[in-house]
């Protein structure tokens, strides 16, 4: 196997700029692997021909501008890409071809990156295992003996593709953990920036007050580079922060001496697998070893984060998904009148998890229930945010496990929605508070499956989060164990 596909993004860009490898060579390296990896089902749409054309043009014109110069990148199928099918992994958007490009992906192309294709995900980003896609399950490049495993979700296609070296890097979205948890399940780095750091314009909306785009990469330096590219104020998004852009890669450093790291006691959950606890302990030790100061902290309302999330996110989603009605774009089912057309279109066009969330969301907003559910959830949300605000007076970052287990077998949790939702227990509080957080691979469990460690930061302090992760990454020395068994 060509080693080109194993390079990190930073390495690849440097080699392309120095002309050590050509754009076509780089693109071909990925194209070949993608063509042999259909079994992972990571992609919904491929743009391999146009990718090679662009690479060819770049080589011919000798234009290797941009900080992502000719890096081949695939993106989650939630980002609207101009003239390239965008489905949100749903039947209801099948054959939808946007006439516009999302702000985040525009930034990637403006810096020279080349689109490989659109990555599979849970339908409308609703899920934690990439088992709700209308285009089939995505498979984790890690196996447990003969069991095929989930890659996590909702950005399962992203995590699988990065871990399997089918792309040099990717962008996913995170609403309740959808970047971090799949990153943990596949042994890669996933960063959710502070809410408002990246523009949401052109991203298929799931839960507007929680959604955030973020990089999923092979290592922390790549994550910093991607964040430099995709972050920034966008006037077209009223929730986009006008805070000054950082210079994350440039300021990335491993010295975290004196950094105050909080360990929240409420993250010790019942039935926590030994491997997870042991990884967390190791993480604490690594931190100490790097000169960080460990502090025990309390985030008292942690356990209420999941129920809060499962009221707010579906409520916002039920409204955001009302536009999928068969009138303007996407799938339309026949109906004798307008109402019947709506009802049939949405019943047939949406999968079960999406319908479940729309129904719950509609219910909690409905007359008579708004105060009891939605309003209450917003009040608890404030308590959760206050918890973080308080502890950030004493610590600079918070260290926790990313997920309560390693990747599980496909089909294992599909019967019980609540069991599925519990996957997000460590990640969801972060979205509710709008904070930045990163997951990096901390080691393997007894079955040889990756486990993730999460670092949570203060609002807009991605630099500290990245630095802490950078230091930890070196200490951990994680090596990918992916073998190309699916080819």
């Amino acid at each position, binding site marked *: 196997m060509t080693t080109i596909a194993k390079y990190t993004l930073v390495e690849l860009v440097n080699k392309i700029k120095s002309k050590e490898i050509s754009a076509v060579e780089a693109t071909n390296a990925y194209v070949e692997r993608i063509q042999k990896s259909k079994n992972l089902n990571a992609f919904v749409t491929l743009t391999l021909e146009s990718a090679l054309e662009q690479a060819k043009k770049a080589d011919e014109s000798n234009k290797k501008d941009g900080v992502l110069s000719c890096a081949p990148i695939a993106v989650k199928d939630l980002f609207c890409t101009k003239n390239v099918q965008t489905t949100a992994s749903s039947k209801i958007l099948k054959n939808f071809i946007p006439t516009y490009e999302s702000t985040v992906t525009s930034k990637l192309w403006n810096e020279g990156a080349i689109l490989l294709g659109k990555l599979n995900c849970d339908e409308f980003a609703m899920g934690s295992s990439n088992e709700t896609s209308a285009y089939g399950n995505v498979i984790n490049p890690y196996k447990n003996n003969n069991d095929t495993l989930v890659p996590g979700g909702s950005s399962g296609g992203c995590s699988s593709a990065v871990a399997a070296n089918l792309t040099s890097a990717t962008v996913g979205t995170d609403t309740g953990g959808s970047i971090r948890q799949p990153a943990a399940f596949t042994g890669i780095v996933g960063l959710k920036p502070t809410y408002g750091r990246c523009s949401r314009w052109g991203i298929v909306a799931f839960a507007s007050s929680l959604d955030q785009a973020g990089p999923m990469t092979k290592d922390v330096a790549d994550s910093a580079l991607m964040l430099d590219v995709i972050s920034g104020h966008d006037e077209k998004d009223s929730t986009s922060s006008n805070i000054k852009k950082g210079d994350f890669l440039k300021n990335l450093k491993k010295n975290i001496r004196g950094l105050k790291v909080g360990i929240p006691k409420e993250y010790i959950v019942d039935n926590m697998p030994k491997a997870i606890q042991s990884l967390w302990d190791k993480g604490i030790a690594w931190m100490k070893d790097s000169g960080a100061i460990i502090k025990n902290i309390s985030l008292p309302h942690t356990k209420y984060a999941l129920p809060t999330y499962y009221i707010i996110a579906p409520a916002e989603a039920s409204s955001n998904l009302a536009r999928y009605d068969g009138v*303007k774009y996407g799938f339309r089912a026949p109906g004798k009148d307008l109402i019947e057309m709506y009802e049939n279109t949405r019943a047939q066009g949406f999968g079960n998890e999406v319908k479940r969330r729309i129904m*719950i969301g509609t219910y909690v907003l409905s007359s008579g229930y708004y105060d009891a559910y939605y309003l209450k959830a917003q009040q608890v949300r404030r308590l959760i945010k206050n918890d973080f605000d308080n502890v950030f007076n004493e610590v600079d970052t918070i260290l926790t496990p990313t997920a309560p287990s390693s990747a599980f077998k496909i089909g294992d949790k599909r019967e019980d929605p609540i069991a599925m939702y519990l996957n997000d227990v460590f990640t969801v509080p972060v979205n509710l508070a709008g904070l930045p957080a990163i997951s990096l691979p901390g080691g393997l469990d007894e079955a040889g499956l990756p486990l993730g460690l999460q670092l949570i930061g203060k609002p807009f302090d991605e630099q500290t989060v990245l630095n802490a992760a950078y230091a930890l990454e070196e200490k951990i020395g994680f090596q990918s164990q992916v073998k190309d068994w699916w080819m």
Partner: protein
Amino acid sequence: MTINKATVKKISKLARIASDEQFEDFMIKDLNSILAFVEQLNELDIKNIEPLSSVVEQKLFQRDDVVKKINEKEDILKNSPVKNENYFVVPKVIE
């Protein structure tokens, strides 16, 4: 607050999702288990807590009153399920 068949039918109507026996049965089950799960929030005393609807702490950006792009008709109608040069076409609505 448990959900029964009548509630499911009502919610499906509001959400414009066609429902049949099978759908109703599995929704009753799932929705009730989600509601049971979120009941925990009632353990908290939130009487005087201000609800949080946005984590963003800045003023709403207001744009200038300028018309951009004169005519996007082609782009707008491009993805229509029923093709028409000028309009979106839907089954008739009876007022």
